[in-house]
Protein backbone atom coordinates (compact mmCIF):
# COMPACT_ATOMS: atom_id res chain seq x y z
CA UNK A 1 0.00 0.00 0.00
CA UNK A 2 1.43 3.43 -0.89
CA UNK A 3 1.66 6.24 1.62
CA UNK A 4 -1.25 8.30 0.27
CA UNK A 5 -3.72 5.40 0.42
CA UNK A 6 -2.49 4.53 3.91
CA UNK A 7 -3.07 8.05 5.24
CA UNK A 8 -6.33 8.43 3.31
CA UNK A 9 -7.71 5.35 5.09
CA UNK A 10 -6.28 6.62 8.39
CA UNK A 11 -8.13 9.91 7.75
CA UNK A 12 -11.43 8.05 7.26
CA UNK A 13 -10.96 6.45 10.68
CA UNK A 14 -10.13 9.87 12.22
CA UNK A 15 -13.41 11.30 10.91
CA UNK A 16 -15.26 8.39 12.57
CA UNK A 17 -13.40 8.81 15.89
CA UNK A 18 -14.11 12.55 15.93
CA UNK A 19 -17.80 12.00 15.15
CA UNK A 20 -18.08 9.49 18.01
CA UNK A 21 -16.58 11.96 20.46
CA UNK A 22 -18.76 14.79 19.16
CA UNK A 23 -21.92 12.76 19.86
CA UNK A 24 -21.00 11.05 23.14
CA UNK A 25 -19.01 13.66 25.10
CA UNK A 26 -21.38 15.87 27.11
CA UNK A 27 -18.97 18.77 27.80
CA UNK A 28 -18.89 21.42 25.02
CA UNK A 29 -15.09 21.76 25.20
CA UNK A 30 -14.73 18.01 24.65
CA UNK A 31 -17.12 18.27 21.72
CA UNK A 32 -14.94 21.05 20.31
CA UNK A 33 -11.78 18.92 20.59
CA UNK A 34 -13.59 15.98 18.97
CA UNK A 35 -14.85 18.25 16.18
CA UNK A 36 -11.29 19.44 15.56
CA UNK A 37 -10.17 15.80 15.24
CA UNK A 38 -12.98 15.18 12.76
CA UNK A 39 -11.89 18.29 10.82
CA UNK A 40 -8.25 17.19 10.80
CA UNK A 41 -9.41 13.86 9.36
CA UNK A 42 -11.02 15.74 6.47
CA UNK A 43 -7.78 17.76 6.02
CA UNK A 44 -5.62 14.61 5.92
CA UNK A 45 -7.98 13.02 3.38
CA UNK A 46 -7.71 16.15 1.22
CA UNK A 47 -3.90 16.13 1.67
CA UNK A 48 -3.74 12.50 0.54
CA UNK A 49 -5.71 13.44 -2.58
CA UNK A 50 -3.19 16.25 -3.17
CA UNK A 51 -0.35 13.71 -2.93
CA UNK A 52 -2.11 11.49 -5.49
CA UNK A 53 -2.07 14.49 -7.85
CA UNK A 54 1.74 14.58 -7.98
CA UNK A 55 2.72 15.54 -11.54
CA UNK A 56 4.94 17.84 -13.61
CA UNK A 57 7.90 17.40 -11.26
CA UNK A 58 5.90 18.47 -8.18
CA UNK A 59 5.68 16.06 -5.24
CA UNK A 60 1.99 16.89 -4.78
CA UNK A 61 -0.76 18.99 -6.37
CA UNK A 62 -0.14 22.52 -4.93
CA UNK A 63 -3.75 23.74 -5.37
CA UNK A 64 -5.36 21.53 -2.68
CA UNK A 65 -2.30 22.07 -0.46
CA UNK A 66 -2.72 25.86 -0.62
CA UNK A 67 -6.43 25.46 0.18
CA UNK A 68 -5.44 23.31 3.18
CA UNK A 69 -3.34 26.15 4.61
CA UNK A 70 -6.38 28.42 4.27
CA UNK A 71 -8.55 25.73 5.88
CA UNK A 72 -6.26 25.27 8.90
CA UNK A 73 -6.25 29.02 9.59
CA UNK A 74 -10.04 29.29 9.24
CA UNK A 75 -10.48 26.24 11.53
CA UNK A 76 -8.40 28.03 14.18
CA UNK A 77 -10.55 31.17 13.85
CA UNK A 78 -13.75 29.12 14.18
CA UNK A 79 -12.35 27.34 17.24
CA UNK A 80 -11.46 30.69 18.82
CA UNK A 81 -15.02 32.00 18.30
CA UNK A 82 -16.46 28.80 19.80
CA UNK A 83 -14.19 29.01 22.86
CA UNK A 84 -15.20 32.65 23.40
CA UNK A 85 -18.88 31.67 23.08
CA UNK A 86 -18.38 28.86 25.58
CA UNK A 87 -16.63 31.08 28.13
CA UNK A 88 -19.45 33.61 27.83
CA UNK A 89 -22.03 30.84 28.32
CA UNK A 90 -20.34 29.81 31.56
CA UNK A 91 -19.93 33.40 32.71
CA UNK A 92 -23.64 34.13 32.27
CA UNK A 93 -25.20 30.79 33.35
CA UNK A 94 -22.51 29.24 35.60
CA UNK A 95 -22.85 25.97 33.74
CA UNK A 96 -21.46 24.49 30.55
CA UNK A 97 -24.48 22.27 30.06
CA UNK A 98 -26.06 22.05 26.62
CA UNK A 99 -29.10 20.18 27.90
CA UNK A 100 -32.57 21.65 27.19
CA UNK A 101 -33.99 20.78 30.59
CA UNK A 102 -32.54 22.52 33.64
CA UNK A 103 -30.89 19.89 35.83
CA UNK A 104 -32.49 18.80 39.13
CA UNK A 105 -30.46 21.26 41.21
CA UNK A 106 -31.96 24.40 39.62
Amino acid at each position, binding site marked *: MNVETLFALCA*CALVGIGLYGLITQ*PHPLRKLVAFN*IMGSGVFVLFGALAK*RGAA*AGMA*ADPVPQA*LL*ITAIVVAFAATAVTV*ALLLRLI*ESTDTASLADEPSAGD
Partner: protein
Amino acid sequence: MTTLVGGVVALLLLWLALWTVVARDAFLAVAGFVVYGLLLSLVWVRLAGIDVALTEAAIGGGLTGALLLGAVGRLRGTEVAAAAERSGAGTRVVAMVLSVAVSVVLALCVLALPEPAPTLAPQVARMLPSTGVGNPITGVLLAFRALDTLLEAIVLVIALVGVWSLAPDRFWGGRPGLRYMTDPDGILAYLARLLPPIGIVVGMYLFWAGADHPGGKFQSATILAAMWMLVQMAGLADAPRIDNRWVRGGVVIGPLAFVAVGVLGAWTAGAFLGYPDGWAKPMIVAIEIALLPTLVLILALLLNGAPARGGDLTALRSSRR
Protein backbone atom coordinates in the same frame (compact mmCIF):
# COMPACT_ATOMS: atom_id res chain seq x y z
CA MET B 1 10.81 0.91 5.17
CA THR B 2 8.89 4.09 4.30
CA THR B 3 5.62 2.16 4.47
CA LEU B 4 6.62 0.86 7.89
CA VAL B 5 7.32 4.39 9.20
CA GLY B 6 4.05 5.58 7.66
CA GLY B 7 2.18 2.70 9.27
CA VAL B 8 3.63 3.44 12.71
CA VAL B 9 2.76 7.16 12.39
CA ALA B 10 -0.80 6.29 11.26
CA LEU B 11 -1.31 3.88 14.19
CA LEU B 12 0.05 6.40 16.70
CA LEU B 13 -2.22 9.09 15.24
CA LEU B 14 -5.31 6.87 15.53
CA TRP B 15 -4.40 5.84 19.07
CA LEU B 16 -3.90 9.48 20.14
CA ALA B 17 -7.17 10.56 18.51
CA LEU B 18 -9.05 7.78 20.29
CA TRP B 19 -7.36 8.59 23.59
CA THR B 20 -8.18 12.29 23.18
CA VAL B 21 -11.84 11.50 22.54
CA VAL B 22 -12.33 9.09 25.46
CA ALA B 23 -9.89 10.64 28.00
CA ARG B 24 -11.32 10.99 31.49
CA ASP B 25 -10.77 14.73 31.99
CA ALA B 26 -10.67 17.71 29.67
CA PHE B 27 -7.08 18.65 30.50
CA LEU B 28 -5.81 15.22 29.40
CA ALA B 29 -7.90 15.45 26.23
CA VAL B 30 -6.45 18.85 25.32
CA ALA B 31 -2.88 17.71 26.13
CA GLY B 32 -3.48 14.72 23.86
CA PHE B 33 -4.77 17.05 21.15
CA VAL B 34 -1.57 19.16 21.22
CA VAL B 35 0.58 16.03 20.76
CA TYR B 36 -1.82 14.92 18.04
CA GLY B 37 -1.29 18.23 16.22
CA LEU B 38 2.50 17.77 16.29
CA LEU B 39 2.19 14.19 15.02
CA LEU B 40 -0.12 15.45 12.30
CA SER B 41 2.68 17.70 10.99
CA LEU B 42 4.75 14.51 10.48
CA VAL B 43 1.90 13.16 8.37
CA TRP B 44 2.02 16.34 6.27
CA VAL B 45 5.77 15.89 5.74
CA ARG B 46 5.13 12.33 4.53
CA LEU B 47 2.38 13.64 2.23
CA ALA B 48 4.92 16.06 0.68
CA GLY B 49 3.25 19.16 2.12
CA ILE B 50 6.07 21.01 3.90
CA ASP B 51 4.11 24.29 3.86
CA VAL B 52 1.06 22.53 5.30
CA ALA B 53 3.25 20.83 7.92
CA LEU B 54 4.62 24.21 9.07
CA THR B 55 1.10 25.65 9.27
CA GLU B 56 -0.23 22.61 11.13
CA ALA B 57 2.59 22.63 13.70
CA ALA B 58 2.25 26.39 14.26
CA ILE B 59 -1.53 26.86 14.14
CA GLY B 60 -3.15 23.42 14.39
CA GLY B 61 -0.94 22.20 17.24
CA GLY B 62 0.47 25.39 18.76
CA LEU B 63 -2.16 28.14 18.71
CA THR B 64 -5.23 25.87 18.91
CA GLY B 65 -3.54 23.97 21.76
CA ALA B 66 -2.78 27.19 23.65
CA LEU B 67 -6.37 28.39 23.11
CA LEU B 68 -7.89 25.13 24.39
CA LEU B 69 -5.48 24.89 27.36
CA GLY B 70 -6.48 28.42 28.36
CA ALA B 71 -10.14 27.44 28.13
CA VAL B 72 -9.64 24.26 30.21
CA GLY B 73 -8.19 26.33 33.04
CA ARG B 74 -11.32 28.50 33.14
CA LEU B 75 -13.74 25.60 32.77
CA ARG B 76 -12.46 23.55 35.70
CA GLY B 77 -15.64 23.81 37.76
CA THR B 78 -18.04 22.78 35.02
CA GLU B 79 -16.64 19.33 34.34
CA VAL B 80 -18.25 17.54 37.25
CA ALA B 81 -21.72 18.75 36.25
CA ALA B 82 -21.09 17.66 32.67
CA ALA B 83 -20.04 14.19 33.79
CA ALA B 84 -23.56 13.71 35.18
CA GLU B 85 -24.91 14.19 31.65
CA ARG B 86 -22.78 11.40 30.22
CA SER B 87 -24.53 9.65 27.34
CA GLY B 88 -26.19 6.34 28.14
CA ALA B 89 -25.04 2.99 26.76
CA GLY B 90 -27.72 3.09 24.07
CA THR B 91 -26.56 6.47 22.71
CA ARG B 92 -22.97 5.28 22.75
CA VAL B 93 -23.77 2.14 20.75
CA VAL B 94 -25.75 4.17 18.18
CA ALA B 95 -22.91 6.73 17.97
CA MET B 96 -20.38 3.95 17.45
CA VAL B 97 -22.43 2.31 14.68
CA LEU B 98 -22.91 5.69 12.98
CA SER B 99 -19.19 6.60 13.24
CA VAL B 100 -18.05 3.23 11.91
CA ALA B 101 -20.56 3.50 9.06
CA VAL B 102 -19.26 6.98 8.10
CA SER B 103 -15.65 5.75 8.23
CA VAL B 104 -16.43 2.67 6.12
CA VAL B 105 -18.29 4.68 3.45
CA LEU B 106 -15.38 7.16 3.27
CA ALA B 107 -12.86 4.30 3.05
CA LEU B 108 -14.84 2.69 0.20
CA CYS B 109 -14.78 6.04 -1.63
CA VAL B 110 -10.99 6.26 -1.10
CA LEU B 111 -10.50 2.76 -2.53
CA ALA B 112 -12.70 3.61 -5.53
CA LEU B 113 -10.78 6.79 -6.49
CA PRO B 114 -10.03 7.12 -10.23
CA GLU B 115 -6.60 6.33 -11.71
CA PRO B 116 -4.75 8.42 -12.75
CA ALA B 117 -5.69 11.05 -10.17
CA PRO B 118 -6.94 14.39 -11.51
CA THR B 119 -4.36 17.12 -10.92
CA LEU B 120 -3.77 20.81 -11.53
CA ALA B 121 0.00 20.54 -11.00
CA PRO B 122 0.90 20.77 -14.74
CA GLN B 123 -1.13 23.99 -15.13
CA VAL B 124 0.52 25.47 -12.03
CA ALA B 125 3.99 24.45 -13.30
CA ARG B 126 3.25 26.07 -16.69
CA MET B 127 1.88 29.36 -15.33
CA LEU B 128 4.10 29.80 -12.24
CA PRO B 129 6.97 31.64 -14.06
CA SER B 130 4.52 34.42 -15.03
CA THR B 131 3.92 35.23 -11.33
CA GLY B 132 7.63 35.62 -10.50
CA VAL B 133 7.39 33.52 -7.31
CA GLY B 134 9.15 30.16 -7.02
CA ASN B 135 7.03 28.45 -4.35
CA PRO B 136 3.96 26.95 -6.10
CA ILE B 137 1.91 27.17 -2.87
CA THR B 138 2.50 30.93 -2.64
CA GLY B 139 1.68 31.19 -6.34
CA VAL B 140 -1.66 29.44 -5.78
CA LEU B 141 -2.46 31.42 -2.59
CA LEU B 142 -1.74 34.87 -4.01
CA ALA B 143 -2.20 34.57 -7.77
CA PHE B 144 -4.26 31.63 -9.06
CA ARG B 145 -6.63 31.39 -6.07
CA ALA B 146 -6.09 34.87 -4.60
CA LEU B 147 -9.85 35.28 -4.13
CA ASP B 148 -9.85 32.44 -1.57
CA THR B 149 -7.04 34.09 0.37
CA LEU B 150 -8.85 37.45 0.30
CA LEU B 151 -12.04 35.85 1.64
CA GLU B 152 -10.01 34.06 4.30
CA ALA B 153 -8.52 37.35 5.49
CA ILE B 154 -12.05 38.78 5.70
CA VAL B 155 -13.27 35.69 7.59
CA LEU B 156 -10.50 36.25 10.14
CA VAL B 157 -11.63 39.86 10.68
CA ILE B 158 -15.22 38.68 11.11
CA ALA B 159 -14.10 35.99 13.60
CA LEU B 160 -12.31 38.65 15.64
CA VAL B 161 -15.39 40.90 15.57
CA GLY B 162 -17.39 37.85 16.70
CA VAL B 163 -15.08 37.19 19.66
CA TRP B 164 -15.05 40.87 20.67
CA SER B 165 -18.85 41.13 20.50
CA LEU B 166 -19.09 38.49 23.22
CA ALA B 167 -17.75 41.02 25.73
CA PRO B 168 -20.23 42.12 28.40
CA ASP B 169 -21.36 45.74 27.76
CA ARG B 170 -19.41 47.14 30.71
CA PHE B 171 -16.08 45.85 29.35
CA TRP B 172 -16.53 47.05 25.75
CA GLY B 173 -13.39 48.78 24.53
CA GLY B 174 -11.34 47.29 27.34
CA ARG B 175 -8.55 44.75 27.47
CA PRO B 176 -9.01 41.00 26.95
CA GLY B 177 -8.36 38.38 29.61
CA LEU B 178 -6.61 38.75 32.92
CA ARG B 179 -3.37 40.63 33.32
CA TYR B 180 -0.59 38.09 33.76
CA MET B 181 1.44 38.61 36.90
CA THR B 182 4.67 36.67 37.12
CA ASP B 183 7.97 36.90 38.95
CA PRO B 184 9.95 39.61 37.06
CA ASP B 185 13.17 37.67 37.74
CA GLY B 186 11.64 34.26 36.96
CA ILE B 187 12.47 31.94 34.11
CA LEU B 188 9.35 32.95 32.11
CA ALA B 189 10.30 36.64 32.17
CA TYR B 190 13.87 35.66 31.23
CA LEU B 191 12.68 33.60 28.26
CA ALA B 192 10.27 36.36 27.24
CA ARG B 193 13.29 38.68 26.94
CA LEU B 194 15.58 36.12 25.31
CA LEU B 195 13.32 34.45 22.74
CA PRO B 196 11.44 37.28 20.94
CA PRO B 197 14.50 38.67 19.08
CA ILE B 198 15.26 35.15 17.78
CA GLY B 199 11.58 34.51 17.05
CA ILE B 200 11.23 37.77 15.14
CA VAL B 201 14.25 36.93 12.96
CA VAL B 202 12.92 33.41 12.27
CA GLY B 203 9.44 34.82 11.57
CA MET B 204 10.71 37.44 9.14
CA TYR B 205 12.92 34.83 7.43
CA LEU B 206 9.93 32.52 6.94
CA PHE B 207 7.95 35.47 5.59
CA TRP B 208 10.62 36.47 3.07
CA ALA B 209 11.64 32.91 2.11
CA GLY B 210 7.99 32.02 1.48
CA ALA B 211 8.19 33.40 -2.06
CA ASP B 212 10.58 30.67 -3.20
CA HIS B 213 10.76 28.07 -0.41
CA PRO B 214 8.34 26.52 2.09
CA GLY B 215 7.06 29.19 4.49
CA GLY B 216 5.02 32.31 4.04
CA LYS B 217 2.92 34.88 5.80
CA PHE B 218 0.69 32.48 7.80
CA GLN B 219 3.55 30.52 9.36
CA SER B 220 5.51 33.72 9.92
CA ALA B 221 2.50 35.52 11.47
CA THR B 222 1.96 32.61 13.87
CA ILE B 223 5.54 32.74 15.14
CA LEU B 224 5.37 36.53 15.57
CA ALA B 225 2.01 36.24 17.36
CA ALA B 226 3.46 33.54 19.63
CA MET B 227 6.35 35.84 20.56
CA TRP B 228 3.89 38.60 21.44
CA MET B 229 1.84 36.16 23.55
CA LEU B 230 5.02 35.08 25.36
CA VAL B 231 5.78 38.70 26.26
CA GLN B 232 2.17 39.13 27.50
CA MET B 233 2.20 35.91 29.55
CA ALA B 234 5.46 36.92 31.22
CA GLY B 235 3.73 40.13 32.33
CA LEU B 236 6.20 42.34 30.42
CA ALA B 237 3.45 43.93 28.33
CA ASP B 238 -0.33 44.07 28.61
CA ALA B 239 -2.84 42.99 25.97
CA PRO B 240 -3.92 46.00 23.89
CA ARG B 241 -7.24 47.79 24.44
CA ILE B 242 -9.62 46.81 21.66
CA ASP B 243 -10.68 50.44 21.09
CA ASN B 244 -7.08 51.37 20.25
CA ARG B 245 -7.03 53.00 16.80
CA TRP B 246 -3.73 51.37 15.83
CA VAL B 247 -5.05 47.93 16.72
CA ARG B 248 -8.25 48.43 14.75
CA GLY B 249 -6.36 49.92 11.80
CA GLY B 250 -3.89 47.02 11.80
CA VAL B 251 -6.71 44.50 11.84
CA VAL B 252 -8.31 45.84 8.64
CA ILE B 253 -5.27 47.07 6.69
CA GLY B 254 -4.49 43.64 5.18
CA PRO B 255 -7.92 42.95 3.66
CA LEU B 256 -8.25 46.62 2.57
CA ALA B 257 -4.87 46.55 0.78
CA PHE B 258 -5.84 43.23 -0.78
CA VAL B 259 -9.12 44.67 -2.11
CA ALA B 260 -7.26 47.78 -3.34
CA VAL B 261 -4.79 45.62 -5.29
CA GLY B 262 -7.76 43.64 -6.63
CA VAL B 263 -9.51 46.78 -7.86
CA LEU B 264 -6.24 48.02 -9.37
CA GLY B 265 -6.10 44.68 -11.22
CA ALA B 266 -9.63 45.19 -12.53
CA TRP B 267 -8.53 48.56 -13.89
CA THR B 268 -5.12 47.59 -15.36
CA ALA B 269 -5.44 43.87 -16.18
CA GLY B 270 -9.16 43.63 -16.93
CA ALA B 271 -10.09 41.31 -14.03
CA PHE B 272 -10.58 41.69 -10.27
CA LEU B 273 -7.33 40.51 -8.63
CA GLY B 274 -5.68 40.25 -12.08
CA TYR B 275 -2.04 41.27 -12.27
CA PRO B 276 -0.74 43.23 -15.32
CA ASP B 277 2.23 41.61 -17.12
CA GLY B 278 5.49 41.96 -15.23
CA TRP B 279 3.77 43.43 -12.15
CA ALA B 280 2.70 40.17 -10.48
CA LYS B 281 5.65 39.84 -8.09
CA PRO B 282 5.57 43.44 -6.73
CA MET B 283 1.80 43.26 -6.24
CA ILE B 284 2.05 39.88 -4.49
CA VAL B 285 4.77 41.25 -2.20
CA ALA B 286 2.64 44.34 -1.47
CA ILE B 287 -0.32 42.13 -0.44
CA GLU B 288 1.90 39.94 1.74
CA ILE B 289 3.46 42.94 3.51
CA ALA B 290 0.01 44.41 4.21
CA LEU B 291 -1.39 41.04 5.36
CA LEU B 292 1.43 40.27 7.81
CA PRO B 293 0.52 42.81 10.56
CA THR B 294 -3.16 41.94 10.14
CA LEU B 295 -2.50 38.23 10.60
CA VAL B 296 -0.18 38.74 13.60
CA LEU B 297 -2.75 41.00 15.31
CA ILE B 298 -5.75 38.79 14.57
CA LEU B 299 -4.09 35.51 15.60
CA ALA B 300 -2.85 37.02 18.89
CA LEU B 301 -6.14 38.84 19.62
CA LEU B 302 -8.20 35.70 18.90
CA LEU B 303 -6.03 33.93 21.45
CA ASN B 304 -6.54 36.82 23.92
CA GLY B 305 -10.32 36.46 23.68
CA ALA B 306 -13.15 38.85 24.53
CA PRO B 307 -12.48 42.00 26.58
CA ALA B 308 -12.90 41.29 30.29
CA ARG B 309 -11.66 44.39 32.13
CA GLY B 310 -11.09 48.12 31.85
CA GLY B 311 -14.12 48.98 29.76
CA ASP B 312 -14.82 52.58 28.88
CA LEU B 313 -17.88 53.31 31.04
CA THR B 314 -18.17 57.00 30.13
CA ALA B 315 -18.28 56.22 26.41
CA LEU B 316 -20.92 53.60 27.11
CA ARG B 317 -23.07 56.06 29.09
CA SER B 318 -22.84 58.74 26.43
CA SER B 319 -23.77 56.25 23.71
CA ARG B 320 -26.81 55.15 25.72
CA ARG B 321 -28.03 58.68 26.25
